[in-house]
């Protein structure tokens, strides 16, 4: 039996206990002296390193500059995925011919992990921005397309009938009926898409970049500086979380507006 929700105090106590235990274990493991501090820093050393990175450049840039670089790539790839994915998804939902043509091609390419595009990205774009953008696109595109398609395809039939009755053209039906109807599904897809895009970005930057948080982590790894690597991980996690939170806000607002 799950039982009732914990009393606030107890929950707080347990949460704190859990965090403390985790940090304590970590710190103890670092102090035990089994390995060098560079190899396994204490949590505080990681935080300190993060602070350093914010002011002191490492691998060419400060942490902030690296993040900016990463975000730029992410934005480009994500926006591209949205600009291609939404119209294509709508077209596929409305025109059966487009659906029949695109679906097999999409399904074939879909199972290629975005990261597997890295070699071609490197081949085609070198260390230019095109490489990471391509990989982010490959990660962000499928959820946008699928969610747009599903949202538009499964529109309640009565809206389509009303639109037909009111004499709407194909363009008008797509933009004024399918698209608005699909918005909740699209926004949900955008959240997933942003998550996958951000993850793909990290992967791309591990290999084909000369700046960005992933690149910083690789350099940190080469210098055997765990604290640097962990700082990168924390930064990536935080930014990814912020992006998701922002999109969730958008999602909630749209749901409220629709009275869903």
């Amino acid at each position, binding site marked *: 039996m799950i039982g009732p929700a914990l009393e606030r105090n107890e929950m707080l106590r347990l949460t704190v206990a859990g965090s403390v235990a985790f940090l304590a274990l970590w710190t103890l493991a670092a102090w035990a002296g089994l390995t060098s501090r560079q190899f396994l820093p204490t949590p505080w050393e990681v935080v300190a390193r993060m602070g350093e990175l914010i002011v002191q450049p490492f691998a060419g840039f400060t942490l902030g500059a690296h993040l900016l670089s990463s975000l730029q790539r992410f934005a480009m790839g994500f926006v591209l995925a949205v600009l291609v994915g939404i119209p294509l998804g709508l077209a596929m939902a409305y025109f059966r011919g487009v659906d029949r043509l695109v679906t097999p091609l999409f399904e074939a390419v879909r199972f290629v992990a975005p990261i597997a595009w890295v070699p071609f990205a490197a081949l085609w774009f070198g260390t230019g921005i095109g490489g990471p953008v391509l990989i982010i696109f490959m990660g962000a595109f499928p959820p946008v397309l699928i969610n747009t398609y599903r949202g538009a395809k499964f529109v309640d039939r*009565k*809206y389509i*009938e*009303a*639109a*037909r*009755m*009111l*004499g*709407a*053209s194909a363009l*008008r039906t797509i933009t*004024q*009926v399918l698209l*608005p*109807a699909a*918005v909740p599904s699209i926004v949900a897809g955008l959240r997933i898409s942003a998550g996958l895009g951000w993850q793909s970005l990290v992967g791309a930057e591990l290999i084909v970049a000369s700046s960005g948080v992933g690149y910083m982590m690789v350099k940190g790894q080469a210098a055997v500086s765990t604290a640097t690597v962990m700082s990168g991980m924390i930064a990536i996690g935080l930014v990814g979380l912020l992006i998701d939170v922002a999109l969730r806000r958008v999602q909630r607002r749209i749901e409220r*507006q*629709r*009275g869903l």
Partner: protein
Amino acid sequence: MANIRFRQVGRVFRQGGQAFVALDGVDLEVADREFVAIVGPSGCGKTTCLRMAAGLEHPTSGSVSVDDVPVKAPGPDRAVVFQQFALFPWKSVWDNIEFGLLSLGVAADERRRRIEHYIGLMGLTGYEQAFPHQLSGGMQQRVAIARAYVLDPKVLLMDEPFGALDAQTRVVMQEELVRLARQHPRTVLFITHAVEEAVYLADRVVVMSRRPGRIREVIDVRTIRRSERWDDLPRIEDVMDQASFVHLRTHIWKLLREQQGSEAH
């Protein structure tokens, strides 16, 4: 001149290898500006008739024509009022009503004139910027009716438009529809399973049999309405209280009751 003509209309559904005859040899003409209601047991095909006139479905035999032109596809000349309203949730009341006019290419000032006219007529003043989910069922259906009328359609097709409303709202809407119909007479095909509604609103009431749907009887209400002067009575309750009304209603009930008893084949 816009009439609706059903000539020997038949509709056969195929599902999983079996054939179901939904409609069988329906012959009906709705004259210009006539208000015809179709009543019948569930599944008798009355909604199918309306949808064929709308162009949302097609007969497997026979033909349906509006204004002597065979019906091929839906269009604003045959405006539909749906039971589930089918207003676009993402558009305001004004934009919903305007949608069809934009497709028709009506000029901006003419659009504004028409929309304002029907908003006033349907009691929607003040709600122009509201969204459907903020409105009650009755209000939403008013918007749907306004949306249909504003198109200035040849015929009006109403598919159990008050079926999703509660009883009190329903009565109010019936009164309003009568008022509207008198003010803007139009050819109307009205589907309902509420007998009183049909008798109150229609010039003629078509009673259909259960599946396979055929016309059982067509009752002329207009003559009685005129001779008994129902229109002079102030409220709907007064009309429904009339002996002549009750008589018609009971007659139709009996017809429908027969359908319940008989076995479907």
